[in-house]
């Protein structure tokens, strides 16, 4: 070893900052440049057409976008989305816990539910629930094979709104069940075991240790499902429920302003999707444990993540 050398390759003397700047010619990405030019061109053509094509009739879009019937339809769409999704999440958690149960009947029942609701089209399910009175004209509450406490006409009880909520939520529950189950299964077994070893009950372990950690994994696909739900609610037009799309359809059936009204509808769906995306971002950030790898909303959209903050914290850990 020639340790006598003053200037070894790993010298501790500070290097002047000028020496570290390389004067190299960067690689020319011709392919990317051509693709960029092409995209800019397409965007330009589309923008020109949106502005100059008079058949878009943006004036009519402006007239309708905050008109009373459209806003009423929007309110219904939003209500259906929120209520059906929340119910769906609730059903999903219960089904997921059932599927993971060591009781075979519970696990199999959940499996059959998921199999059935994922295996039939939602549109069919909605129409089925709408016509349920054909199967059961009378609905009663009581003890099976025992006394009846309450009885009612199915047609009075099952309003189109109730059918919409029921159909959307039951169907959503099947999908959410698999998402929640995936989240729970993804948690290291040791987490639950150490909770049990400390004397926590099965439910305490689930509620305090497993589910809070699973939430982090569950949120992104749940955000996806919620956005999907927003648009799936437009299926309720078969129940003659005046949601956003159905309202627009009834208007343009009368006025033949099809395109402008579809623009109105699309703009509203896009708007709510943006709000939901924003909400998902904050939920995700809230549940990022340790809270040290944080990204801002704009970083997330542009896909640029600064590693500076996180690497500083990693150094603090010591073991890495």
């Amino acid at each position, binding site marked *: 070893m020639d340790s006598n050398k003053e200037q070894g390759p790993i010298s501790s003397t500070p290097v002047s900052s000028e020496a570290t700047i390389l004067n190299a010619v960067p690689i020319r990405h011709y392919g990317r440049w051509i693709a960029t030019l092409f995209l800019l061109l397409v965007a330009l053509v589309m923008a020109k057409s949106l502005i100059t094509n008079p058949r878009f009739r943006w004036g009519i879009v402006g007239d309708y976008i905050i008109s009373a019937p459209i806003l009423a339809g929007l309110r219904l769409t939003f209500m259906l989305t929120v209520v059906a999704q929340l119910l769906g999440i609730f059903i999903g958690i219960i089904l997921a816990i059932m599927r993971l149960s060591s009781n075979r009947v519970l696990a199999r029942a959940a499996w059959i539910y998921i199999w059935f609701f994922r295996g039939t089209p939602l549109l069919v399910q909605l129409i089925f629930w709408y016509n349920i009175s054909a199967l059961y004209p009378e609905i009663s509450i009581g003890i099976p094979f025992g006394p009846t406490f309450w009885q009612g006409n199915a047609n009075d009880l099952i309003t189109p709104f109730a059918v919409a909520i029921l159909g959307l939520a039951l169907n959503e529950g099947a999908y959410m069940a698999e998402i929640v189950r995936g989240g729970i299964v993804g948690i*290291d077994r*040791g*987490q639950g*075991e*150490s*909770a*049990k*070893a*400390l*004397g*926590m*009950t*099965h439910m*305490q372990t689930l509620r*305090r*240790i497993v589910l*809070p*950690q699973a939430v*982090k994994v569950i949120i992104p696909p749940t955000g996806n499902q919620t956005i999907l739900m927003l648009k799936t609610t437009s299926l309720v037009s078969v129940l003659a429920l005046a949601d956003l799309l159905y309202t627009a359809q009834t208007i343009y059936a009368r006025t033949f302003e099809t395109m402008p009204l579809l623009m109105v509808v699309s703009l509203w769906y896009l708007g709510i999707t943006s709000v939901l995306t924003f909400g998902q971002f904050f939920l995700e950030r809230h549940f990022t*444990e*340790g809270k040290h790898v944080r990204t801002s909303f704009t970083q997330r959209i542009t896909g640029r993540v600064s590693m500076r903050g996180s690497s500083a*914290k990693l150094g*603090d*850990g*010591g*073991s890495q």
Partner: protein
Amino acid sequence: MIEPALRVEGVRKSYGHVEVLKGINMQVKPGEVACLVGPSGSGKSTFLRCINHLEKINSGRLYVHGDLVGYEEKKGRLYELSDREVCRKRAEIGMVFQSFNLFQHMSVLENIIEAPMRVLKISKEEAVMYARELLELVGLSGREESFPKQLSGGQQQRVAITRALAMRPKLMLFDEPTSALDPELVGEVLTAMQDLANSGMTMIVVTHEMGFARKVADTVAFMDAGLIVESGPPDQLLDHPQHERTKSFFSKVL
């Protein structure tokens, strides 16, 4: 006669057709430290997990402080205990795992006070006070707000020991507590365990650290293929093993 902390009679355990414990007999007196050593797959960890009923035994009897683990015996018949009752018994037995298993979404302090608050129903103030006291003993004062990922393996394992001690257990189980650690971090965890042993805690330790076994254990038991082949005081077992299997094992690891 004092009731032993652990009394094990003919315990057997199978997974399907594979029998991993083939009739274990063992006694540990209160305040004693027993080390279980032996090759991988000999059933050491499974046996440890049977003691706090994380695994159910197939036959035999297992008593902790005179109480049957996981069951109740009435008129010669065994009745399985409810989840709640099993949990109450488990709360008296601390366990430390090879992979630490700290709750990843909780800070060090939250990890320690969770079970005392939820299981023992101790007030938060009292739980926090005791947690800080224990953290100081293992040299982790000032780390209360850290998250597990920000700690080294040795620090995590010391938090895990603290978390178990916060339940004021009468018996502590250690399942290869240093096997997942970098060699330079093993010492700090063994020191914490030795301090605990000196304080009079009854401990059952599955380990490959023969130095620790020799220094701290009152009894060392050598397990192979689901049986305790030989047991005795550390000096006798480590230096003068009687059985061929024990001799060949120690000739390789010592």
